[in-house]
């Protein structure tokens, strides 16, 4: 018997009992939808971290005072605070002249909070930081209006500011921010550019900030120490050699700090990988549990399908007898019921994916961007088919081994 015939048969049998098929599949559909929603939430979350926090797209590394491991617990933080010296601009110059694999290399300083004013409009508690002009390139800063700083402005410690879109909107409601004047701690700055709005990350607004050239930051806000300490960011000349570039920077930093071989780093290097690695360490188990729980619904759905397939075999004993009398082999009957179960569950899988997709749209609109990958869809369908095989094999086997004489005698 050809496979296409088996498939047609399965479709006809499912269609003949539309309501029953639909009710049977309810569990499968909910299970698949739940699993797919969770997977797309996780993938959305991961993409979120990649994009907003790890800044995967920028493909840059950061050298800072502390490493990710230093934040393991309070003891390690305390130890790192004693051991890790703050980075300095001298460190920056030392590295800059020696790095051969790094393309762009720039320094920035951690932000502090300040009051910003224009006319009667006052913004409290705005994060202000200082950056070298090249940082704009490294971070792939999206300029909505105007421009980033120039080297000249940095070297002269010019009072110019690159501002977030929230700041621009509040202080310049007419949209004429570029060229305008704002007061930070009572000193006037000229706005040279506005960044494209980024929205929020984990509910934290990203567009309420002011960046000034690093040298202006140092001159007007104080030495680049303590909370204003500097960090460096670099990109590789060749993205394929990114790891090597990071390693080179790390080795020179160790030389600069005079670390012995085998001694622990007393500074931190962050790469997008180290951030996603941290994420996977922190959330990996949670993700597994989050997928496993709705997967239980899938298992229950499969059991329901098996139950209905068993009922179906009993109901159709006569039909099986007739088919056997007319020349159906065991394999034909087995295939008929197995394919029916698999087609049924794959339909359930598709329905589940569609529901998950719709739910994803809603969740993306109101909660967090979800990401439904083709891989997840494929896996869901494959898994549904697998559940169909698992649920169908026993009923199908029961049907196949029915004695034709007994089966024909059934009502």
């Amino acid at each position, binding site marked *: *018997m*050809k496979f296409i*015939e088996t498939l047609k048969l399965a479709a*006809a049998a499912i269609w*003949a009992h539309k309501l029953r098929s639909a009710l049977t599949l309810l569990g499968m559909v909910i299970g698949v939808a739940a699993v797919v929603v969770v997977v797309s939430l996780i993938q959305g979350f991961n993409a979120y971290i990649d994009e907003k926090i790890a800044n995967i797209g920028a493909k840059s590394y950061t050298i800072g005072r502390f490493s990710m491991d230093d934040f393991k617990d309070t003891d390690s933080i305390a130890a790192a605070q004693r051991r890790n010296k703050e980075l300095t601009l001298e460190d920056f110059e030392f590295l800059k002249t020696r790095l051969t694999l790094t393309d762009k290399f720039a320094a920035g300083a951690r932000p502090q909070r300040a009051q910003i004013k224009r006319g009667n409009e006052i913004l409290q508690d705005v994060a202000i930081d200082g950056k070298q002009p090249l940082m704009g390139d490294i971070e792939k800063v999206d300029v909505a209006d105007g421009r980033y700083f120039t080297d000249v402005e940095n070297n002269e410690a010019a009072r110019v500011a690159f501002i977030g879109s929230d700041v621009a909107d509040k202080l310049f409601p007419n949209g004429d921010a570029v060229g305008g004047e704002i007061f930070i701690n009572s000193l006037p700055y000229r706005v040279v550019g506005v960044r494209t709005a980024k929205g929020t990350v984990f509910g934290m607004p990203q567009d309420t900030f002011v960046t000034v050239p690093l040298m202006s930051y140092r001159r007007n806000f104080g030495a680049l120490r303590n909370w204003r300490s500097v960090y460096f960011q670099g990109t590789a000349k060749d993205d394929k050699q990114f790891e090597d570039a990071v390693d080179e920077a790390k080795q020179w930093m160790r030389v600069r700090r005079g670390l012995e071989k085998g001694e622990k780093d007393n500074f931190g290097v962050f790469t997008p990988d180290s951030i996603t690695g941290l994420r996977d360490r922190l959330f990996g188990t949670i993700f597994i549990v989050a997928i496993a729980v709705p997967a239980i619904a899938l298992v229950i759905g499969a059991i329901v399908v098996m139950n209905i397939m068993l009922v179906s075999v009993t109901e159709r004993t*006569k*039909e099986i*007898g*007739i*088919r*056997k*009398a*007319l*020349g*159906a*082999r*065991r*394999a*034909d009957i087995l295939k008929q019921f197995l394919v029916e179960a698999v087609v049924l569950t794959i339909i359930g899988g598709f329905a589940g994916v569609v529901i998950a997709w719709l739910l994803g749209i809603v969740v993306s609109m109101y909660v967090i961007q979800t990401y439904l990958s083709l891989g997840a869809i494929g896996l869901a369908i494959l898994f549904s088919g697998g559940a169909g095989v698992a649920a169908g094999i026993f009923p199908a086997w029961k049907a196949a081994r029915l004695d*034709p*004489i007994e089966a*024909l005698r059934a009502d």
Partner: protein
Amino acid sequence: MESPTTVEPQALEHGDLLAHDAVPAALISMRDIWRTYEMGAEQLHALRGVSFDVQRGEYLAIIGPSGSGKSTLMNLIGCLDTPSQGRYWINSKLVSEMDDDELARIRNQEIGFVFQTFNLLARATALHNVELPLIYAGISSAERHERAERALRNVELGDRMTHRPNELSGGQRQRVAIARALVNNPSILLADEPTGALDTKTSYEIMELFERLHEAGNTIIVVTHEHDIAARAHRIIHIRDGQIERDERVEK
């Protein structure tokens, strides 16, 4: 009486010999067929050493009261069951030792069943019902259609092809079943009480159809307990207590 199980190894050697050297020329050949059912500790012999031949083109009735073993015999002839002991050939193929799948193939190729209760698939159209044996024979959809249509026209149901069984009268249903039985050109048309569920007038119509099919060269075996149905055949085998009581030719 000897136990069939103890005789089996010897019989197998014998069978091999026959299979190679003395394959009977008849369309159907049964030799010393036993069918024994185990009922707990007891053995129930439904057939006790039945032997007969059926030639190509014969019209044979097997008649006997209920419990005579005729249903068991029909199941064996139809390859729905295998004998506990004995040799059975259809079309020179030794079917008595075939496994389930080989038997399914023989049923598909060599046997056309007609049942008392028609046994049509309720959800399928007449055409689809007739196509069923061809599906299991692996025949392409276009050819299947054409052959099933021809078979239905042969039983004068050309205008009922898309009807479902519940839209057909009893006689029409039985004619669909007959079309289905014949569609794959089997060696034997095997009918089990074919008129048992029909009124007298329709019964005659069906028996006339059998007559016509016989004249067209089909080999027909009808299993029945009704004498006037059996009398239509050209040869009657009387079964009683699991044995052939009489094997008579009917002069027409």
